[in-house]
């Protein structure tokens, strides 16, 4: 959830063309290599110790029988690829993989994308209180802390006194017990749609009004307009947002706050599964093996994303990328 970056281009005064100024070249403040290295070191050390090292350590941990307690805690044994074989053959892993797929595809790829686009499209040429209200509520769902949001949904779906049951006249329906995965998916659509809405809002502002006008005059239906005039212009944005929301949703731990993976693991997506096996059951080696699989999946998504971004920033497309 990076914030908008608006590098405010400071009005640059014309560069002093004196030979003296030019001689400083790149290193205007006269920092020098040694000082530059010293400036960079704190950040690099922190990143190395707390970000890079853990990832490398996962590689090693995944090949041991490391446990939180007991003999294997003090003297872990090398077990080679055993953990990976166990993980890949584990029925619980298969279930969590399947649930994660439902979570990512259902809530992020389909839910957030379609709803976010629909809201952006409907609001594109509106202004005034309705638009502010809709956008405000959608954003609120995005910016409130996850613990608060999780409790709001627990209250909404409560079996005995929940608002939803009161509204629908279905007292006693235990949504979270009967349909845990569906609840988590709908919850995540609610929570994350803001990002797609804002991104598509910005993207739609990029479609030349003349294109839409032409489509309207030609008598094109909404669907035809979207397909022929809008989609080709915002294809890059769609791909970007799909990859980002997939990455974020895949790594989201918030469902733990609502269902804790239950009942009977029926909403145990992979992030929750890692937590339960590694820190709940204390099987750190086994958990590390799953962690590594998660990192690999992240790597694939992120590489595709960076590749897409690079091609969008290529010279011919600069205008679109800077949008």
């Amino acid at each position, binding site marked *: 959830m990076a914030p908008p970056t608006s590098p405010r281009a400071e009005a640059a005064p014309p560069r002093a063309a004196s030979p003296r100024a030019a001689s400083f070249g790149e290193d205007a403040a006269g920092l020098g290599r040694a000082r530059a290295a010293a400036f960079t070191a704190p950040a690099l050390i*922190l990143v190395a110790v*707390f970000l890079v090292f853990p990832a490398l*350590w996962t590689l090693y941990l995944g090949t041991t029988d490391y446990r939180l307690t007991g003999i294997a805690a003090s003297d872990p044994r090398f077990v080679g690829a055993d953990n990976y074989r166990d993980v890949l053959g584990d029925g619980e892993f298969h279930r969590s993989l399947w649930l994660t797929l439902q979570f990512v595809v259902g809530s992020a790829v389909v839910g957030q994308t379609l709803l976010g686009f629909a809201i952006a499209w409907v609001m594109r040429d509106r202004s005034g209180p309705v638009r502010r209200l809709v956008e405000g509520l959608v954003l609120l769902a995005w910016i409130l802390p996850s613990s608060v949001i999780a409790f709001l949904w627990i209250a909404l779906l409560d079996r005995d006194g929940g*608002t939803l049951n009161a509204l629908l006249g279905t007292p006693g329906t235990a949504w979270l017990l009967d349909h845990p995965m569906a609840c988590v998916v709908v919850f995540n659509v609610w929570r994350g749609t803001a990002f797609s809405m804002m991104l598509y809002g910005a993207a739609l502002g990029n479609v030349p009004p003349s294109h839409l006008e032409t489509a309207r005059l030609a008598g094109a239906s909404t669907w035809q307009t979207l397909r022929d005039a809008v989609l080709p212009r915002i294809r890059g944005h769609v791909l970007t947002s799909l990859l980002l929301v997939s990455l974020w949703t895949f790594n989201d731990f918030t469902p733990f706050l609502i269902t804790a993976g239950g009942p009977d693991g029926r909403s145990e997506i992979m992030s929750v599964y890692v937590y339960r096996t590694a*820190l709940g059951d204390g099987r750190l080696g086994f958990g590390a093996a799953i962690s590594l699989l998660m990192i690999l999946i992240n790597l694939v998504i*992120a590489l595709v994303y960076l590749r897409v971004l690079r091609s969008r920033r290529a010279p011919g497309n600069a205008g679109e990328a800077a949008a």
Partner: protein
Amino acid sequence: MNAAVREALRRIGLATFVSAVLGFFALPLLWLAFAPFDANPGIAASPPEFTLHNFKVLMDNPYALASLRNSVLLAAGTAALVVTAAALAAYALSRVRVPGRDALLYVLLLLSSIITGTAAMVPVFLLAFNLHLIDSRLGVVLVLTGGLLPAAIFLLKDFTDATPASYEEAARVFGASPLQILRHVVVPVIRPGLATVAVWTVAQVWGDFLMPFLLLRNPDKAPASVIMYTFYTEGGQPDLALISTFSLLYSLPVVLMYLFVSRRYGFRFHGGIKR
């Protein structure tokens, strides 16, 4: 005639869609709006019997206010560390030609997006354990800083790149040392960037649940995100008066911060997000 019917249907369809969206997004929030002021908060959202008594319940709870203070400590500590380290690194990387700089930044950004708290919770827990950082706020701050720094450096480098070098050259002509130049010329110019990174960091840390949940044992040190979770799992029944007021108090800072940022800088998307 036909066109008029179609237009009417279109308007009805739009109005239905907008109402459905409003309902969907407002429904869970109703409870947060009503329950804190309700003399008898139930689990269902209902118009309140107005009272401020619930806030007294909050003040009396030993953990509630302390946890908000912990959240402030974690967020402020992380923001200070992220802004300082990122500003120094971004400035050096922006001004001094280092071989392989772009590749380094690219790899850092890639790593920070794939090594997330959830994917790396096992090694991060063990690392904190071995460095004796379990149950230490500093541990949480350091882990979070490591994860946020690459993106922060990226954001700030944009700002420093946009700073005209002639300012610094002029200062140097008058005999300023590099550190003086940094403090008196560069920092004021990139202040919007520093503010952006600080606000972004605070927002990330303020809502974070996993890392403090993983690394802190003592409830006295737990931030609001974790303490809130204990209000409704221990003791069986959730303490609704407490949870509702606490939720409101805990949410306010991020909402205010968002309003401030959107007023001041415009909350819109420029450039790729997370480039």
